[in-house]
């Protein structure tokens, strides 16, 4: 029976708590607070009520008829793009913010790449009356002006990060430095299944609502489990969220990483396909590095996948062969983006477009039943896609 992480926060040889000493006590406090609410029904009632009334759950499992005809197998889309704020990120934000309140914290901080997690965090902070600071790379701020404005409108302070590659990796560094300085009143609301224990476990648990719903919905519609579940993988929160409830089933799980300009170009963010292991941001995981251990500046057309590591649980699921990890290049993702828009009237986030695009290059046999996690909507990416399509 699958029951991870262990009490030291390890999934096999991945995970752990590689953090400055000052952060150990708040991590232990978080672990304790979480284990307390785990069996506290009032906490989950509140969580589920907000998911239902505020986020709009359950999200539909939609049978994509025209896409299925074109591909030759049945595709169901798990519509996380219909969540309030436009992506699955808010599921975890609600859970962690409620937890922060139970721990007596009055301020939350978060990192963001494209801005989805930042917007979701700022939204929940506004909803629950918490002070909020978001760290965002300068480069990303320039690319995602709308989301920066959104966060500010929601009442969050957005702090530009100008070190290193000025993207998500540095935003996490800055958030960790803020946290270590302000642990008394601040909770760090990590947005993916990365970071030190207990974060990968907590984020997975809050996101696994996606898979639980999808499993129930497909049984209602098809009276059987799917043959495949496909999701994109950056840090890995939407994918673990949909995979986790299927782990003990006879269902093939496929994670699609950001292949960028192709693995041979080194301009990609396919950490697992890259096969190096390292330690960053508090955990041991598949991690892209330069010679002598500095972390590589990765690339993907989608900011949400542009991260050099991948969650420790994914790293473990890869090694035991339970999940297959593939990648989709920028071009394949753009194909998915166009096809879904034109066949189904759904404009996906570029992250999710990697999972959709992968279907077109996969070896999935005809007549299979496939669930794809459509983790977010594409409004935020229109600028980028316009440029890529040379639209004047």
């Amino acid at each position, binding site marked *: 029976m699958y029951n991870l992480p262990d009490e*030291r926060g390890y999934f096999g040889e991945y995970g*752990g*708590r*590689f*953090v*400055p*000493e*000052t952060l*150990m*006590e*708040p991590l232990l406090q978080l672990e304790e607070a979480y284990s307390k609410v785990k069996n506290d029904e009032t906490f989950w009632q509140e969580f589920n009520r907000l998911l239902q009334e505020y986020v709009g759950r359950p999200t539909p499992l939609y049978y994509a008829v025209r896409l299925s005809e074109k591909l030759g197998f049945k595709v169901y889309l798990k519509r996380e793009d219909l969540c309030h704020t436009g992506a699955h990120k808010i599921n975890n934000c609600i859970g962690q913010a409620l937890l922060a309140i139970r721990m007596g914290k009055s301020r939350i901080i978060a990192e963001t790449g494209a801005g989805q997690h930042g917007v979701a965090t700022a939204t929940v902070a506004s909803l629950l009356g918490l002070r909020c600071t978001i760290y965002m790379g300068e480069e990303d701020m320039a690319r995602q002006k709308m989301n920066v404005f959104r966060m500010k409108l929601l009442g969050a302070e957005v702090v530009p990060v100008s*070190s*290193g590659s000025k993207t998500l*990796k*540095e935003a996490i*560094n800055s958030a*960790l*430095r803020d946290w*270590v*300085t*302000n*642990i*008394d009143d601040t909770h760090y609301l990590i947005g993916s299944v990365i970071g030190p224990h207990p974060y990968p476990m907590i984020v997975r648990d809050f996101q696994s609502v996606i898979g639980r719903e999808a499993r129930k919905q497909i049984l209602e519609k098809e009276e059987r489990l799917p043959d495949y579940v496909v999701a994109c993988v950056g840090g890995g929160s939407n994918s673990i969220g949909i995979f986790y409830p299927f782990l003990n089933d006879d269902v093939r799980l496929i994670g699609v990483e950001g292949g960028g300009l192709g693995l041979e170009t080194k301009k990609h963010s396919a950490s697992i396909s890259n096969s190096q*292991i*390292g*330690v*960053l*941001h*508090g955990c*041991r995981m598949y*991690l892209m*590095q*330069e*010679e*002598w*251990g*500095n*972390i590589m500046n990765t690339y993907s057309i989608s900011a949400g996948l542009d991260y050099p590591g991948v969650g420790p649980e994914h790293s473990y699921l890869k090694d035991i062969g339970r999940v297959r990890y593939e990648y989709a290049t920028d071009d394949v993702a753009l194909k998915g983006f166009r096809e879904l828009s034109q066949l189904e009237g759904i404009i996906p986030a570029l992250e999710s477009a990697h999972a959709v695009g992968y279907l077109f290059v996969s070896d999935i046999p005809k007549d299979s039943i496939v669930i794809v996690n459509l983790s977010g909507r594409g409004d935020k990416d229109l600028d980028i896609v316009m440029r890529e399509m040379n639209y004047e």
Partner: protein
Amino acid sequence: MNRIVDAFNKAKSNNRICFIPFCEFGYPSLEGFSKVINIICKYGDIVEVGIPFSDPIADGPIIQRASDIAIKNGANISKAFEWLYNFRKDNKSTPIVFMLYYNLIHYIGVKEFFKIARDMGLDGVIIPDLPIEESDNVYPYRDGVSVIWLASVTTSDKRLKKIVEKSDSFIYCVSVKGVTGPRDEISKDGLDLIRRIKKISPIPTALGFGLKSKEQIKSLTSLADGVIVGSEIVRIIEDSNDDELERYLEELKSATSML
């Protein structure tokens, strides 16, 4: 490791506490570093050398910047070992401790890293992102090289006990909640941390994070066994000439006297 223990004993017998200056390998340049370290070794009882890393999460802006510049200068852990090997040809007495993030050790492989460290004449390592809960990753492989654990103002007495048990040279006491960088005052919690350790163990303690002035150091001589000064030295290396660096180090060193 023995050189570190000796340094604390020697300082004590001279009625001083240990002075532990920090500098960043490869900063301000690879050659510049060799010059700086020779000056620093004149004053430091133990010298802490930071190894540049792309993601130094425990460091404030001054050391972050030095680390970035050092990387651009081509500095890395391999070159640092090479430097140490040559350094040890002329200097067999100054204890050298590397401050480096865990991934740099992990990259080489823990066992291999400590073997090289011992062979090159490294006395200890400070790993700012490795808490005692992860000690199994390195402790069994240290091979005569001291692993210097950090204790912080937030560390509970229960965990402090575990840290003391695994310490074989000294404990690096983090005086503030936060990252490295000079501060005007030493927190009461920082002083309490040293007292809490003294209560359970005779292991030497050195206070770091935030120290910059001779007054601060003077005020610690009756309590701590050592002081670590980092960011302010790096700042002076950037802004001033060698003479000023030397003057600053001399001033700090004389403040370590218990008399």
